[in-house]
């Protein structure tokens, strides 16, 4: 079981903060995350997670969805999702 960072409950419904946008960049053929004075080019795993931060799905639902879509071990997906979310929460780029 992964340690749960403060503020990230299983039933939290994370979404991108106002002023943070995920965009499909047609010129570069990649996803980009746009924030104040920042352009982040997420890796493919992060891009899949970011696309599911809609403020509707819970953390558990996002992990289940990704585990099924990619036929990957649930524990590994869970760790990836929580690592990314806690980083973006600290940067105030994601809110729950």
């Amino acid at each position, binding site marked *: 079981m992964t340690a749960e960072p403060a503020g990230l409950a299983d039933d939290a419904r994370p979404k991108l*903060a*106002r*002023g943070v*946008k995920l*965009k499909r*960049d047609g*010129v*570069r053929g990649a996803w*980009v995350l*746009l924030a*104040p*004075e920042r*352009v982040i080019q997420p890796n493919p795993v992060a891009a899949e997670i970011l696309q599911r931060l809609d403020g509707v799905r819970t953390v558990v639902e996002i992990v289940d969805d990704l585990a099924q879509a990619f036929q990957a071990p649930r524990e590994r997906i869970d760790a990836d999702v929580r690592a990314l979310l806690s980083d973006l929460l*600290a*940067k*105030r780029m994601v809110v729950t």
Partner: protein
Amino acid sequence: MNQVTPPPAAPLGLLAELTHRCALGCPYCSNPLELEARSRELSTDEWKRVFSEAAALGVLQVHLSGGEPALRRDIVELVAHCAREGLYTNLITSGVGYRPELIAQLAEAGLDHVQLSVQDSEPGSADHIGGYNGAFERKREIARRTVETGVPLTINAVIHRANVARAPDMVMLALDWGAGRVEIAHTQYYGWALPNRALLMPPRNAALAAIAAVEALKIELHGRIAIDHVLPDYHANVPKACMGGWGRRTLNVTPAGKVLPCHASESIPGLEFWSVREHALGDVWRANPAFQAYRGTGWMKEPCLSCARREVDFGGCRCQALMLTGDAANTDPVCHLSPHHDRILSAVEADGVGEGAPAAAYEYRRFTRADVVG
């Protein structure tokens, strides 16, 4: 066309200087000494075309700047156009010279971020630095309106002799005003800051004390406010990666439509900058010789040429190299390896002497009288 270098990657950002008009007269303004008159500014349709071409070229973020961009009567229309093109819009504003209600209209039009300048945490000093009575209170109101809309707010504070003692106070002001982010930027000596350098440069120990205090706040306020710290390069040993490399990540369009690799690059003689009035933005980015001039590493001389950091800092700033060594292709003299590094040290020694607000008058950034009337 004989092009030896491979085509550059697409730019990420566009700085759009919509106008040089501004109510403030900050003595460190990055605009050129020769300001463009209103009559020369691009029209609404011309700017829209520039933004559409930028989006097609791969630009992701547009920084609407000036002067004061909100003095453009078409600012809401331009923001809405950028939003339709999928561009991330950032308003870089003084907060002065327009109705505070405009902020809500811009938010409605799709504005993504507001960056508001603050000249000092002391209202009297702030108004003196900007050369405009009552500016501080107007800025506070713009901050309040921005927070009310939910659009994220950054406070930008330029640090120099008159306010260096209050650099940490400006972080606290940003927190108090509801900003999620603050930029504490030590003055860079370009544009109007160069003729004012003797009045702006703080003593080295005052700059170092301010840096230490702001770094401490970064840790203390982690998770509450993001602090971006731009250090004074005159006190550094290695140069900054100016613009992330010449013609590599961003481009700049002046009020009259000239396309520049950075806002100061017109100070370099011998470069011909193309205008969006005659060229498509993508053609300028790819083919304007001025963009090729210092792109990559092929133009470098020693000590840059064989340096391990040549693709880290790209030799520093071309404009600074020109101003202080007479040749834009020299190593930025901020670098300790530059044979001209002593010129930085002597500038600091000569100018970084006074404490507190200077007694002499700043040379405020102003249009000539004729331009104001016109």
